[in-house]
């Protein structure tokens, strides 16, 4: 995408500032979540500097989505703490919510409204200044390449367009941190490439911190500055893709790294609910 319009000034100085000073955007300490006897996330700790693209990798049922749900205040942790954008997720959830954008794995745009109407509702919900609202909506539409289809009902969008609209929805209040849960699941290669380019552009131009989950190794390799491999609720390895590959052996791919750290993985994780969710998302987007 050679000349995608910029989202930069005059609205995004605060973000750029926060990105430059390299302070942790997400700081997780011993975070756990259990569902009954199942420990979905087990004493997870990690520190994510601002302005990076961070990829959380793992097989189905590894605890990736549970982690994202806790960090986005959707799910209270069983124990442990996390600071997101400098705010405690348990004690200052309102502040955390102000500071983050979230794109769930499943479809989160309202199908029976137009792209513009979707953005309008969220702009109002987030309290975007009335004087800036229309301008801001047009900015994010333009940034995500949706200006021409803004008045079309979302049901008529392609999978790639829906994903881009969802990212636009998450950007409307200019969050310094963006959470993306499996952002390219079910997309064709062209649409996936386009989403990747937007994610990179967000980081490069605005210094947005990106926290994403994926189980596609190619995506992590292409996109992420830092990758953590999660398995059975715990982080097994953290590093740049290059570091992780070097750690496993000469000529190793991220696939090898993944297999290496999740070797005790049998095929019985995740289960019906996960499969249904992923397939449903894929079929809706596809």
């Amino acid at each position: 995408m050679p000349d995608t319009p910029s989202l930069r000034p005059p609205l995004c100085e605060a973000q750029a500032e926060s990105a430059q000073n390299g302070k942790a955007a997400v700081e997780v300490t011993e975070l756990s979540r259990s569902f009954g006897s199942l420990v979905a996330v087990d004493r997870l700790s990690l520190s994510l500097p601002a302005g990076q693209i961070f990829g959380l990798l793992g097989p189905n049922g590894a605890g990736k989505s549970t982690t994202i749900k806790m960090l986005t205040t959707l799910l209270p942790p069983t124990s442990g703490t996390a600071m997101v954008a400098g705010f405690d997720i348990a004690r200052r959830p309102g502040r955390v919510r102000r500071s983050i954008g979230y794109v769930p794995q499943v479809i989160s745009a309202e199908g029976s409204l137009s792209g513009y109407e979707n953005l309008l509702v969220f702009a109002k919900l987030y309290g975007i200044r009335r004087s800036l609202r229309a301008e801001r909506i047009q900015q994010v539409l333009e940034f995500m390449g949706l200006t021409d289809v803004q008045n079309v009902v979302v049901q008529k969008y392609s999978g790639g367009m829906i994903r881009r609209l969802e990212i636009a929805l998450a950007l409307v209040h200019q969050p310094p941190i963006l959470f993306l849960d499996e952002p390219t699941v079910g997309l064709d290669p062209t649409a996936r490439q386009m989403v990747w380019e937007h994610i990179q552009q967000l980081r490069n131009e605005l210094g947005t911190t990106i926290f994403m989950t994926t189980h596609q190794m190619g995506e992590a390799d292409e996109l992420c500055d830092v990758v953590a491999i999660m398995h059975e609720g715990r982080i097994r390895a953290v590093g740049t893709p290059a570091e992780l590959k070097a750690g496993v052996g000469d000529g190793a791919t991220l696939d090898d790294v993944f297999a290496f750290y999740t070797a005790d993985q049998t095929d019985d994780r995740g289960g019906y609910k996960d499969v249904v969710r992923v397939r449903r998302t894929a079929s809706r987007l596809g």
Partner: protein
Amino acid sequence: MLSESAAPQAVWVEEHPVFDFVRQTSAVAEAELRKLRHDHLELVSRMVQPVVWLVVFGRVFSRLREVPTGGIPYLDFMAPGILAQSVLLVAVFFGVTLIWERDLGILQKFLVSPANRLALVLGKSVSAGIRAVPQAGAIYLLALLMGVHLWFNPVAMAATLVFIGLGAALFSTMSLIVACLAKTRQRFMGVNQLLIMPLFFGSNAIYPLQMMPGWLQRISAMNPLTYMVDGLRAVMLREAHSVYGLGWDVLVLAVTAAVLLGLATKLYPRVIC
């Protein structure tokens, strides 16, 4: 440093909490009403059942002169009851959209926003109240055509709208609670089937409470639909009077709605777990 002072302040404003709350509530309601604009069939299809009730049931039961209606024709007596019933039937299915939004990620998006949780629920209830108005208007018109002796007093007609809006908001909030607890469409539908018949027949919609056995009267007196119908009857018809008093009707409905809203607000964020 990404401290509170350095948090992005460029695009959004924080107003007085009350303004914030009103704006968030209206944003949620607006989303619901904009959705309705894209679907006109819904309004038409909702009209079928009340027409059948008034034209078939009403006509037949009019010949039975045994129902103690308080001196008014039976068709007049039941018209407000059927209006309330149609509001109830639409409202109790309102919660299914919440399950739909939960299965997609729409609800998650709303919950990740800084909007007040009560505003998220109240916005939905308000939209349900507004949605009920055109439908009620159509039944009002139908009743007029069938010769029901309506009361064309502007204040009374405004009061009719109040009862319709309040009733719709109350039962749609109840439906949101059912959705929060049921979490799947199948269970939601099952619970609804259990609720609808007792709510309707255990009320004064098509016969007065004094026709019921004592135990049923006591149960029906706890049914919010009874107070909605009682209020509607008094303000819709020229000749009818409220059994409980209009003030009491409004109070019962408002307090019940408030309690249900509080409960729904508590349950709402848990629905996604």
